[in-house]
């Protein structure tokens, strides 16, 4: 019986390690290992918090009642869907989202059509149009809140000059939602305008020249050429703005706080109220996932439409 020398034992250990490395390398190629750090970082900062909040949505977890933390199943979802205020906020969100995006789409397209035909001053108009996009939403909200102030606002000052009185824009339930929607439209129409203008300027001019030679009117050219060719861009713009509008928080929160009553309370405001007024993290998380579901379904619908448009 002979014993392995130290050198032989070391050599076997090295061989075993090499074999292990080979097996792992065979199982998972190097390039997968190379993306592992990035994957781990993404998991840590994106996926884990999402999963944590998703888990939280099944718990009764109120920060001010820490002795009563327990698993609650779907109770938070049931609570949210049975809460008339939340159901009302779903409706308000729908009106707000559809209303603002539709008007932005029409106005953005109209402005783009006009600026696209300008031969002089197009650059200046384009730059001026972009100013609202670059303004911080909170600043925009404060600015408009002051401009719509019933006593001190410039809007009511001019209305009073022409004898139209002093409407309470943000305190009257009939005016509050249209007012915040108008501010959102003012802020985001330039985005639509920019996307559509860029799209129009990249369209082949030969098609339009041929249509003009064939005697097509402006409206016919717009309906039969511009609109179909821009459809993929329109859908992308609708997806981006639609998702933004469904999640809108800062403008409404600063301008009306969701009031008067619940007249301007969207689901994002409800989430804030549940999470940071009531400190109900479970319910707040559940409502967040309802928003996620709404935005997800909206996104899926438009992406499918976009893919179909591309195939056509």
């Amino acid at each position, binding site marked *: 019986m002979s014993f392995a020398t130290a050198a032989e034992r070391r050599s076997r250990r090295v061989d075993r390690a090499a074999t292990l490395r080979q097996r792992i390398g065979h199982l998972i190629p190097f390039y997968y290992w190379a993306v592992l750090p990035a994957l781990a970082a993404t998991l840590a900062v994106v996926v884990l918090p999402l999963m944590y909040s998703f888990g939280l949505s099944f718990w009764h977890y109120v920060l001010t009642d820490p002795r009563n933390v327990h698993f609650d199943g779907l109770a938070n979802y049931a609570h949210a869907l049975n809460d008339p205020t939340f159901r009302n906020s779903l409706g308000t969100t729908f009106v707000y989202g559809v209303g603002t995006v539709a008007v932005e789409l029409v106005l953005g397209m109209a402005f783009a059509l006009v600026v696209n035909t300008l031969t002089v001053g197009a650059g200046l108009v384009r730059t001026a149009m972009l100013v609202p996009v670059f303004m911080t939403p909170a600043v925009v909200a404060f600015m408009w809140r002051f401009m719509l102030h019933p006593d001190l606002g410039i809007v009511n000052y001019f209305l009073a000059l022409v004898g139209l009185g002093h409407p309470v824009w943000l305190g*009257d339930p009939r005016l509050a939602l249209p007012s915040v929607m108008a501010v959102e439209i003012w802020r985001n129409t330039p985005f639509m305008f920019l996307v559509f203008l860029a799209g129009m300027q990249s369209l082949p001019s030969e098609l339009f020249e041929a249509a003009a030679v064939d005697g097509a009117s402006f409206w016919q050219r717009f309906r039969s050429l511009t609109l179909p060719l821009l459809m993929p861009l329109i859908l992308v713009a609708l997806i981006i703005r639609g998702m933004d509008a469904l999640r809108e928080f800062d403008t409404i929160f600063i301008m009306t706080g969701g009031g008067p009553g619940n007249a301007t309370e969207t689901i994002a405001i409800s989430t804030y109220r549940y999470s940071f007024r009531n400190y109900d993290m479970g319910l707040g998380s559940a409502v967040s996932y309802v928003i996620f579901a709404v935005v997800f379904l909206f996104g899926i619908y438009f992406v499918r439409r976009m893919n179909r448009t591309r195939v056509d």
Partner: protein
Amino acid sequence: MSGQVNRAIVTRRRFVQTLGVSAVGLLLAACAAPAATPAQPASTAPAAVGAGALSGSSIRFGALANYKGDALEKTFPDFEKATGIKVLIDKLPNPNLADKLTVSFASRSPDYDVAMMDETWIAGLAPYLTSVEPLVTRDNLDLKQYVPNGLSAGVYNGTRVAMPLDPNVMMLWYRKDLFAAKGVVAPATFDDVIGAAEKLNDPANGVAGISVSGGQDGQVSALAEFLLWNAGGEILTPDKKFGFNGPAGIKALQTYQRIIKSAPPGVLAYGYAEQINAFYTGKAAMVFYWASIGPDATNPEKSQVAKDVGWASVPNAQRGVWTLGISKDSTRKDAAWEWVKWITGPVGSAEFTQNGGGHSPRFDVLNSAEFAQRYPWAQDYQKALGGARSRPQVSSWNAIDTVIMNMTTSVLSGQKQPEDAIRAADQQVAPYLT
């Protein structure tokens, strides 16, 4: 080559499978209990440590970012000179301070050793606060020096978890010149206030009878709650029901509707800033607001009507005491207590009031000549505070208060009748009262 391709396909599958298994594992982990249940408030005092032994230490203090925070900050040099303890202040605006304290304390690794808290936050924060009862006993604090209606704000479920810093109370601030011109005497009750508002309301000359909040603001719920008390109701009944749901609640909301008829035209969009601004700029003959506006209302640099401002106490006024509490998870409780003891003691409290921070919870400061000189309404203030009412001490107060605010603004803006609004609010409040 094909073998390599096949191997790559299998490996990718395994990779995705591994990811899937990991994701399920993570999901299960995420569904685990969110936080450990904290223990009861500490009931034993830390061993006494001489102030000298704490010299050189520092504490973190979360406070309001307004004139109160500024006034507190001005006292730091004297406190540091007296104890050698450094105070590091973090000033945050009102709603953000509550959020930050709650989230930070719930994390069990608090950002602050000492927290400045409105009395309505105490019930929610109590599980994270240390009991100061043993410290009060250990240091022989003379609690008889404190106004009882201010001192009681720091007690939750029979345990003292905070000391009063600045008891605020609602008072009536009015224009003496307008009252004299119309022969109206200073109101003694809130019914008198409403009567005076209707007499003094003069929209043709741009002067409203009274300025109140009518928009989405905490002052709306504060006034609605006061009107409920005035109508003989309670916010929460003894059997834990929503007190607005009854004749007193309906009367309270109807009275609010009546009041806004004598308010400035834009009242439905008024928050606290517009409310007091209307009074300072001469657009309203009265404002029913916290005593803390006294220094600004009577300061000609801040108020156009400063020289004509009068004041009066009103029965059943709402109390709002700013308090100081110590985090249960603080590792510097002794130094934190030294700060709380000093700033609520005779020297610190006097300095705080002279710096313009607000009122004092202490009789020795309130009855001093210096205080009376700086706060000429001191007598009426003490009378108002003595008869003031407090909001219920429940951990879900924020949620209930928000429902009251929404209920009231929906009535004021004409969306709902008082009965319908109260019925809807009752349903919304119910889950928070179980």
